[in-house]
């Protein structure tokens, strides 16, 4: 699906550009977007390495294990087929906490570690590593539904652009996040039980 989508973006884009005379803009944007990507990657290298470093400290000193214990009842609802003491739980839990606290950059290293563990589990179950498991889909959907409690970045942007009430979005954003997260949980529980699961 990703392959098709990526190709569609490029093909539709280039055809549109040819008809609207935006080919020059497209040429510029190719150069610009690769530059943007590399700039982002440079920023990411620093921040992700830092968070990953602290993640390993938290892991080795047992903080993540302890947090997982508190969040376990909730996580068991979402991941009913994941063995209770599986290491994937620790990373999923660390990832959700990073998401809830709005630690943006700390989410990617924990998330990738969780995916790796889920992939190992998939292999232990003797299933094809090419196909996403229910746990992976659920984990991804919850990550997409933003669990962040207080949108600190957004408040900063709003006050930077002259808002008289930059904090006014806290309550509606919290309500919106709660609703989307609930929808995500329900959606995952419905889709998990479908027969086509590999």
């Amino acid at each position, binding site marked *: 699906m990703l392959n098709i989508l990526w190709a569609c973006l490029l093909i539709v*884009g280039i055809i549109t550009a040819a008809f609207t005379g935006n080919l020059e803009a497209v040429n510029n944007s190719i150069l610009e977007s690769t530059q943007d990507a590399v700039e982002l*990657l440079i920023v990411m290298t620093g921040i992700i390495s830092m968070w990953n470093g602290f993640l390993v400290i938290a892991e080795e*000193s047992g903080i993540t294990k302890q947090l997982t214990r508190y969040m376990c009842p909730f996580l068991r609802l979402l991941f009913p087929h994941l063995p209770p003491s599986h290491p994937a739980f620790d990373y999923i839990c660390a990832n959700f906490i990073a998401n809830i606290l709005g630690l943006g950059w700390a989410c990617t290293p924990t998330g990738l570690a969780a995916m790796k563990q889920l992939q190992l589990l998939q292999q232990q179950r003797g299933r094809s590593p*090419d196909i996403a498991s229910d746990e992976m889909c659920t984990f991804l959907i919850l990550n*997409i539904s933003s669990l962040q409690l207080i949108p600190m970045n957004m408040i900063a942007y*709003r006050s930077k652009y002259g808002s008289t*009430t930059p904090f006014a979005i806290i309550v509606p954003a919290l309500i919106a996040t709660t609703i989307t997260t609930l929808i995500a949980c329900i959606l995952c529980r419905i889709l998990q039980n479908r027969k086509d699961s590999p």
Partner: protein
Amino acid sequence: MKLLHFVSIFFIPFFLFLIVLYALLQKKPLFDLFTKGAKAGITTVYQIAPTIIGLFVAIGVFRSSGALDLVCNLLSPIASLFHIPTPILPLSLLKMFSASGANGLLFDLFKSYGTDSYIGFTASILLSCTETLFYTVSVYYISAGVKKTRWTIPAGIFLSICSLWISCLLTRYFIH
């Protein structure tokens, strides 16, 4: 509100302080662990670099060619049925692909409509309640070596549409 600002500044340093203190009390080799983790972090970024470059180029072409606006114009009659203003549509679509692209567009909306306008407020909520769908899907799945994503993308798109609609509803409730 001052308190909230205070919390936001002290939050990350305090978080790191707690981790370090806890590990110190456990007599762990802190710096060794940190460097071990940071090394793995660099490898992580190296692994996801091709995905990010590919995504950025595709979305850059799609946006600069005018195709994004074209798609938004096609979708706007449907959106207006749900009282979703047209200027919000490109933001919602862009947010699926890149957070930095969406932020750039958000600033444009702030400049042309104002942060506290209907559009500015909806945009603020919208970007606070969703994460970048295709970035997350491609980075996570490609790093795990998964090729068939099953129901992730349809469910993610459904969720994005829900969040768009919810943002508009909440704005109407909170502003008027």
